[in-house]
């Protein structure tokens, strides 16, 4: 645990906000496995080269992202796949798009494993009686499925997706909506996330949260305006900090 602003950690917070992807579980391995499964399936279905898939998919994703900018739908795997099939000259192919999407998420979920200590941490927080919420990008449908898959639905009090908020983080909307739902007793909010821009800077600038960055291989520690108040690589360290503050209370 590396604490940059000691004075902001004088007490336990009144609410916890959590990012999901790459914060509660490592995103990259799950995504890589899932993307490969879809590529294999597409390559087998249409007998095309893997490179053709990569190119068509990249193009489709680029188009969807440009059109939808920072909204939840800009992350929609279903839209990417639909557009990809169209780019490949096959029309919309609704059934195939759905099938590929399900292949992606099934493989994704089966390769996603919560970080050690996540459930223990959430249990600690539950026993301390502090409200928790998830503030995450992407669409409600898939994020809900993830939460259910991980068995986290009973741990969190609230969830806000960018689909619900209308904007991705670091826009203030998702953070504000989370606070409106939670009605914390005070103004000390902790935001735990991996992304230095959307989670760390966003939460500090928009709701003046105490920010904690989860780091592991592939995550860049935020600097300057994106620097977190503290960073940690193991959830065990965060649990220790919370236990210490809880004891002082």
């Amino acid at each position, binding site marked *: 645990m590396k604490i940059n602003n000691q004075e902001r950690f004088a007490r336990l917070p009144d609410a916890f906000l959590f990012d999901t992807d790459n914060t509660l579980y490592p995103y990259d391995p799950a995504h890589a496995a899932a993307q490969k499964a879809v590529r294999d399936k597409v390559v087998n279905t249409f007998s095309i080269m893997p490179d053709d898939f990569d190119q068509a998919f990249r193009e489709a994703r680029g188009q969807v992202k440009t059109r939808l900018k920072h909204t939840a739908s800009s992350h929609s795997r279903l839209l990417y796949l639909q557009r990809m099939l169209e780019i490949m000259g096959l029309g919309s192919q609704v059934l195939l798009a759905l*099938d590929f999407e*399900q*292949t992606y*998420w*099934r493989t994704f979920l*089966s390769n996603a494993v919560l970080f050690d200590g996540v459930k223990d941490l959430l249990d600690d927080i539950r026993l301390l009686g502090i409200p928790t919420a998830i503030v995450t990008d992407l669409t409600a449908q898939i994020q809900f*499925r993830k939460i*259910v*898959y991980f068995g986290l639905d009973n741990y969190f009090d609230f969830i806000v997706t960018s689909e619900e908020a209308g904007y991705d983080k670091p826009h203030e909307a998702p953070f504000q909506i989370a606070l409106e739902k939670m009605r914390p007793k005070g103004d000390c909010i902790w935001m735990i996330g991996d992304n230095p821009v959307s989670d760390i800077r966003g939460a500090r600038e928009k709701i003046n949260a105490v920010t904690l960055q989860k780091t592991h291989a592939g995550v860049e520690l935020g600097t300057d305006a994106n620097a977190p108040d503290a960073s940690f690589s193991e959830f065990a360290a965060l649990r220790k900090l919370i236990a210490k503050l809880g004891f002082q209370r």
Partner: protein
Amino acid sequence: MKKMCLHPMFFLGLAIRAVLIIGMTPLAVSDWYVPFLDASISSITLDPWSAWLAGGGTPLAFPYGYAMWLVFLPLTLVAKLVGSPLHYGYGLTLLAADFCLLITLHHLLPGRERLLLAVYWLSPIVVLASYALGLNDLVPALLLTMSVFFMRRVELRLAGCFCAAAISAKLSMVVALPFFAIYLYNNKALRQRIAQLFLGFLTCTLILGVPFLFSNAGLQMLFGNPEMGKIYRVALGLGGNVSVYLVPLIYMVMLYLVWRVRRLNFDLFQATTGMAFLLIVLMTPASPGWFVWSIPFLVLYQAMSGRTAIILIGVFSVLYVLSTLLVTPLLLSNGLDLDFGRVLHVSGQLGNHAASLLHTAMVAIGVVLAIRIWREAITRNDFFRLSRKPFVIGIAGDSGSGKDTYADSITGLFGGHSVVKLSGDDYHRWDRQKPMWQVMTHLNPMANDLEGFCNDVVSLADGKSIQSKHYDHQTGKMSKSFRIKSNDFIIASGLHALYLPILRDCYNLKVYLDIDEALRRQFKLRRDVLQRGHAVERTLTSFEKREPDAERFIRPQSNYADLTLALQPIHPRMLQHVDDKNPLRLKLVVKSRQGFNEVSLNRVLVGVCGLHVDIVLSDDSAEVQMTIEGETSAADIEMAAEMLCPRILEFLDIPPRWQDGMAGLMQLITLSHISQALTKRFI
């Protein structure tokens, strides 16, 4: 792996090994192995044994096959080239094998780094045998463990290869072979693939074994090896010149016991093999090399069992080391020797007494360990307890409700080799042409030989074979009788499968297929006309004729079912407009009386498969009803099963045949019920 290799315990073990490699030159290494390897490097030959004996070397020097030689060759060669003492090359090869074994065990026991380091990497036996005494048993132990590892991953060709290589490295490894064979043969899903193991085994034997047969010197050294004689040392004299040798006796009894376990899973396989090795080690004092073979199995057992096992095996290892040190002096590289017997002033008669006492204590602990393995790892093994008796599933439902299709889909999961099916249709009293059918429908219990059906189910459940006939739906005639053997899973389906109370008591799981009536008529019309060649009118009138009997005899059976599966059209109107453009879409209504795991099932169906689920509890909470809608694929179902009932997956065929859509859902739900019903056997 990184986590393991950065652990202080890893460095401690590494340091101990390094010190011993530098500080010790065991007799066997300096007098036998190294000179032998030196000789075979100096004169390039493919038959180093002949070259060695021709040069006047002792036959004790290298009584091993090509695998062992090839493993030691590269680093010895490097040592020679850089001009360092050759025994460093030997020591480093052992260290490499040691490390590979650690990694292999890590793959077998992911996430157990600390345990591995404590019980394997810091095992006094491994350290003493390999680095202080210079024994090379780590090499065959590694090859055998690799074989076990590939066995677990069901890559049988590689498993066969490594098994042959282990035997080539050290012939004594052949003791493991029968256990491999029993494991593969008694597990019917694996038995289908046994040829792959043979293929790998034969290929490797051809490469490593056959050339060895042409080396007379090699054979001479191998079979002249006095080490082998150790298995005859413990004997019961029967008077005259006849004795009973205890090691072979125990070994054969172990083989019989393992055979009797019947279907083995991987855990049972490794527990039984480990136990056999442990017993052999117990009966062969002061052969720490032999102990090394059993270490990987003991590590697996310790991972499964827990603290007591770890302490027992720790004490056992320390006693073994002490008793070995009392009788075997160690040789340091400065030429001095370290004889603990002398240091402790327990030489001569007193020394023997002390060694024997130590050994007695060790055997006592060893026996306790063997008993514990038998109790914990074998008789309390889930798979062992579950596969003692066949599992019997009873399926009832009206004609055309999909009993056969359903039974086939369940069979596809367990594999035809492990399932025996009994169909109620084969117990109709009369051929179709007989006049009795004019006054009675097939739905009438009187028209069926339920007593015979019941006797046959009881016999099969008891593991006995039966004589049965088969009803041919095309001709409407019964075949001649033939023999049916019992099997691990018995599926008894029929119109009246749940009719008699005694029948219901036979089943471990009772299923009723309660298909939507309009849907059933449509399915049955299609099947009877297209597959069984009946006339359309006759089928239609039979619906009316059979209705009262269905109401009276068939549907009440659903009250006795643990699980009711009902396929229904998403909307009743759908049935009227089914064609290519409007394919029939179905939903599955599941009713369970087992107090079943609907919460986790719901979680998996929604989270993984992305389906729509509706759960209703009946008023008295005795029954859960679940309505499931949506599209799902075989891959979804497979993953859902892995999450929902992982324990039962070991019983499934390799690979099991999962189905798409509603049939797959029925497979999943049935499997979770089977898993629960099996659990009842523990209570």
